[in-house]
Each structure stands twice: as structure tokens, then as C-alpha cells.
């Protein structure tokens, strides 16, 4: 197919968002700072108009110099204003196609297509090919063409229900948005927004800043109102933040793929190849555990930005997370607890900082008379006990017939369920102290997700048998 340009309407989008002109902003601001914005409002208008013209010009140039061509064996993207870059990606290297429609794109009937062509060693921006500004129909054609070579799911892959070609697995219930204030990452959304607002307020010229006066911090009512306002902003902000990302999340199966669609302003359309899924992770933060909420993520090989793209259930009841996981990986059975030595080690680790403070406090009390370190150390050491017990309670491992599972973590508890074929290697680690206590840490190296998952402090005698049961006969090399 001969090279084609994207839709001209993308020029509008890029002009408005300053996509290409953005890199000029620091320069303009620098010049402005040198001269000083003292020429009155007209200077500001002139600068704004100038930036818009530059933005329009660069957007037109970028659009004019960008073209793509999808052939039978590869897709070629040509771009660059002065130095031309031609990037060719063979179709069999295409690992996924994501179609996203930000708000402005939607108004103009356009979408952005991201082609995930992870080359393995290449990380970051080079990992994907972005074709910005296609009409929806053309994007659908391109996506179908790029993914046409996909094979049917392999036999030992998951027991997805056979059935119609397109089948909805579940859709997001908007009531689940109420879990958002208990999730750290969503709580961070309003905090980041407020932070940005304050930075902006700092940048504003003094005369434009509202004069609020100094709040009277001794007045209990003022403090109470302030605290209530902060809590309200956090609650509402996190719910809104989570709604923007997860609105009308829907997970469907289409042939050999899982398709996730989500988003309020930007609609995102992500496709995961079922055959590349090696397992699932179900994570529950401290707050989420109170309300039995969880999130589920697929662990997929060769997927760029896997933490976002692999999401199967961004937020929801624990039962739902496990239901989705059950569709993709066989349940290996209930977890086995780790030996008592593991509990002792967790307790020692958790109480050690407090104990050190306690000793230092005792010494200081005796020598210099600084008594306050002593109670601080005692409290910290005391808090270490529930922390250590909690961390121990999170530990568990089990190997089933076709899958295995590992769990750890207290602040964020994560349980991964992996297929046997996911394992590309084993590592058994034993420190000097672990050796004396008869435990070892076993790491399953996996070409997906975090790259490796640990079974912390399992009995030394269980290490090799667990590895063999969780992967295959080749792991018997560990026992000879």
C-alpha cells in the first residue's frame, strides 16, 4: 500500500494542544523573563498570538511530513521535519494495538493508534509506533490489518469459555468508584492537582493573586473547616480521578484477544492477546482490604507499559477480581503458610529499627539525660509486632497441577497466580542468617510483569520440590 497521511483535522488538534510547539514554551518564557512582562496586557496577547501561529505552522509541517504505509509484511512510518526517519516494523513483531480517543480527537471524529512493537532491548518511547489523527473507520481497518496474523490460543492456555466470537466478560459497576478513596494511587490524583494549582498560583504576577489574608490558626473552627475541606477534596477528587480513567470499563473477549475499553474523556481501547498472558496479579492495598476490594492485572509477555495495559479489573470487589483471574489461570488451590522461622524473621525485621532506637535512647538517658528517644523507640518497637505478624500472614505459596501462586506484602498485598509455562528460570537465595535458620527465598523468573516473583523464606528443604512442582521436570536439576 502506498504511503498515506493522517487526517488533516489532526492539525487543528495539535495547534490547540501546542503539541509540536510545546518545546518552544520554555524559550519564550525565558525571553519573557529576561525582558520582563512589563509591557501590559498587549504583550501577553501578542505572545499568545505568536505562539499560536508557531504552533499552527509546526503542526502543518509535522502533518505534511508524516506518512504511514501498512503492507502485507510490515508497517512503515516516515516522519521528521528536516532529518527524515523511516521506521519499519514487521507485522509479526506487533504485540498489540491500542486505539485511544482523547476528548478533542472525539469532537473531530479522530483517534490515535499506538502500535506496541516491543523490540525487547528497546525501552521507552521507541517501544511503540504512534499514528495520531486517523478517522475511526481507518483506525479500525489498520488495527484489524495489523492483528490479522494472530494465531488461535494455544491448547494449554486458559479455559476461557468457548462461545460467540465477541463476548462480554464483565462491565464496570459505577458503585465501585466509591472504593477509590481507599486506594493510594487514586488519592494521589487530587493531591497532584492541588499541588499544580499552588505552583500556578506562585507563577502568577502578584497583582493577579487574590488577597486572602492570613488565616487565624488558633481558631478551632477555622482548623476544623480546613480539615473537613481537605478531606472532602481528597474524597471527591479521588472518586472523580478514578471515574475519568475507569468510566464504563468493559472487558470483552474477541477471538484470541481480550479487549478492554475505558475512560470518560479519553476513550481507550486496549487489546491483549490471550496466548501471551502468563498469569494474573491480584493486589489489595491496606485500605482496600478493609472493604474487600482488589484490582486484577494480567501478566503479559512482551507488553510495553504493562501495568496500565494489562489491567483486567482496575478496581472492584475481591470476588470479581478472583473471578476474572479464574478465567485466565487455573486455581492452584489454597496457599500454604511459611515455616515459623519466617515469622521470627519478619518480626525481627519489623522491630529492629525500634529496638535500635530503644537502646540508643537508654544510652542517651543514662549519659546525657535525653529521655524522649526512649519512649519513641518503645512505641516503634511495639508497632513492629503487628507489622511483622501482618507481613508474615501475607506470605504463602502453593503449586497446583497447571499453575502456582505466591503471595506477599503488607502495605500492598499482592498475590500472583502464574501458569507453569511462565517460568523461564529459578533462583534460590540464601543469606548467612537464612542458612542458620533453615529457610531460603525462591524467585521464579518470569518473562512478564515484574520479571520475577519471590517466595520469601520458605523451608530450605521445600525450595527445590516447590520449584519442580511449579515449573517442570527440568527443575529437578536443583536436586540432582
Amino acid at each position, binding site marked *: 500500500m502506498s504511503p498515506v497521511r493522517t487526517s488533516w483535522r489532526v492539525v487543528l488538534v495539535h495547534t490547540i494542544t501546542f503539541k509540536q510547539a510545546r518545546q518552544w514554551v520554555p524559550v519564550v518564557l525565558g525571553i519573557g523573563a529576561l525582558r520582563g512582562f512589563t509591557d501590559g496586557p498587549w504583550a501577553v496577547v501578542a505572545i499568545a498570538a505568536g505562539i499560536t501561529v508557531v504552533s499552527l505552522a509546526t503542526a502543518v509541517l509535522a502533518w505534511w511530513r508524516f506518512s504511514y504505509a501498512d503492507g502485507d509484511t510490515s508497517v512503515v512510518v516516515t516522519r521528521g521535519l528536516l532529518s527524515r526517519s523511516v521506521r519499519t516494523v514487521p507485522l509479526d513483531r506487533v504485540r498489540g494495538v491500542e486505539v485511544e480517543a482523547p476528548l478533542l480527537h472525539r469532537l473531530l471524529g479522530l483517534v490515535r493508534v499506538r502500535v506496541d512493537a516491543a523490540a525487547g532491548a528497546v525501552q521507552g518511547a521507541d517501544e511503540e509506533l504512534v499514528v495520531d489523527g486517523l478517522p475511526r473507520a481507518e483506525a479500525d481497518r489498520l488495527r484489524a490489518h495489523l492483528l490479522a496474523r494472530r494465531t488461535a490460543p494455544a491448547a494449554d492456555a486458559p479455559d476461557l469459555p468457548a462461545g460467540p466470537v465477541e463476548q462480554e466478560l464483565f462491565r464496570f459497576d459505577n458503585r465501585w468508584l466509591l472504593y477509590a478513596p481507599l486506594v493510594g494511587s487514586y488519592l494521589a490524583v487530587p493531591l497532584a492537582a492541588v499541588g499544580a494549582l499552588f505552583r500556578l498560583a506562585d507563577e502568577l504576577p502578584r497583582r493577579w493573586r487574590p488577597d486572602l489574608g492570613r488565616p487565624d490558626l488558633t481558631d478551632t473552627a477555622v482548623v476544623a473547616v480546613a480539615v473537613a475541606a481537605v478531606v472532602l477534596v481528597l474524597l471527591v477528587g479521588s472518586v472523580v480521578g478514578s471515574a475519568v480513567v475507569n468510566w464504563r470499563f468493559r472487558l470483552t473477549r474477541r477471538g484470541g484477544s481480550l479487549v478492554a475499553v475505558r475512560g470518560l474523556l479519553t476513550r481507550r481501547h486496549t487489546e491483549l492477546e490471550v496466548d501471551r498472558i502468563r498469569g494474573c496479579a491480584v493486589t489489595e492495598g491496606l485500605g482496600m482490604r478493609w472493604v474487600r476490594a482488589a484490582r486484577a492485572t494480567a501478566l503479559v509477555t512482551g507488553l510495553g507499559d504493562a501495568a496500565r495495559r494489562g489491567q483486567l479489573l482496575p478496581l472492584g470487589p475481591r470476588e470479581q477480581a478472583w473471578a476474572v483471574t479464574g478465567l485466565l489461570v487455573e486455581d492452584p488451590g489454597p496457599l500454604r503458610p511459611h515455616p515459623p522461622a519466617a515469622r521470627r524473621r519478619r518480626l525481627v525485621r519489623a522491630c529492629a529499627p525500634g529496638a535500635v532506637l530503644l537502646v540508643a535512647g537508654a544510652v542517651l538517658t543514662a549519659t546525657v539525660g535525653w529521655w524522649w528517644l526512649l519512649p519513641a523507640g518503645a512505641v516503634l518497637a511495639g508497632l513492629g509486632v503487628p507489622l511483622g505478624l501482618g507481613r508474615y500472614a501475607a506470605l504463602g505459596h502453593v503449586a497446583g497441577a497447571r499453575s502456582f501462586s505466591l503471595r506477599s506484602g503488607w502495605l500492598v498485598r499482592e498475590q500472583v497466580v502464574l501458569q507453569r509455562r511462565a517460568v523461564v528460570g529459578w*533462583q534460590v537465595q540464601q543469606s548467612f542468617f537464612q542458612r542458620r535458620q533453615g529457610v*531460603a527465598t525462591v524467585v521464579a523468573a518470569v518473562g512478564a510483569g515484574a520479571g520475577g516473583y519471590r517466595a520469601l523464606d520458605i523451608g*530450605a528443604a521445600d525450595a527445590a520440590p516447590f*520449584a519442580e512442582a511449579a515449573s517442570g521436570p527440568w527443575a529437578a536439576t536443583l536436586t540432582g
Partner: protein
Amino acid sequence: MHPDPARSPAWTPSRNAIGLWAVEGAVGTLVLALLVTGLEVFLPLPTWLAVLLPVLVVVEGVVSIGVRPRLRYRVHRWEVTAEAVYTRTGWLSRTWTLVPVSRIQTVDVTRGAVQQLFGLASVAVLTASSQGTVRIPHLDADVAARVADDLAHRAELVRDEAT
């Protein structure tokens, strides 16, 4: 004493590795000694610290030149079986690593400057996982080349694309 979590692989690295580790330890100790000398000359240290620091340097030298290389040599083991590459590394803490031949993606041989003086080379076997890398350090250069060739060849025959 508790039993080991995994058996020890069959083969040892080259004996020259002890010399190489000792040289590495000596270089580290030298840097430390220079640092401490600088401190003693330019800073008004309390007497007890001025005595303690050189003692610590001497202890570090004895450990890193005389003791650690031998301990390492006793721990470091490797083995290539029909199905897998298997190593044990470390000195106080120990790490066993096992990777099946079918999951090998790349085999690298590296020869550092000091390694060349001792006629040594290291083999690194890479998989799809960043944590699934096996390093076999300090083999005789010709052994390393042979092992790397053999592994790369066999990996090609049995490669399992579904990593």
C-alpha cells in the same frame, strides 16, 4: 546445621579466579587506604578514630585479599546439563540459579581487562526475564568460548518461542 536448599553444581571455575578476586580486593583496599590517609592528613580526627581507621583498613585488606577469594572459590560452582544451566555464586550469602536451555535467548561472553591478564572470561545467559539471567564468572577463556557456542547452538534447536 540445616540441609542446603539445592545441591551444589558439579564444576568449579578456573583456579585463576582466586588470583583475580584477590587483585580486585587489593585494588579496593588500596582505594580505601588512600581515602583514610587523606582523612588522617587533612582532618583533625579524635585520637581513637585516627587509630581505629587504619586498623579497619588492615582488616578489610586481610578479608578481601586473603579470605574472601578463597571463600568465593569454594562457593562458586557451575554446571551445564542436557536440560539446563545451573550455577551457585556468592560467599557469605549464596544464590543458586537455574535456567532451562529451551528458554535461553542470548549467550554473551565477556572478557574484562583484568580477566584477560588471568586468561579468564565470563559467560552470561539471558532469558526473557531480567531476573532470569545466569552468570558463570571466571572460566578459562577457551572453556567459556566452548560453553557459549554449545549453549547458543542447543538453544537454537530447542527454543521455545512461548516465553
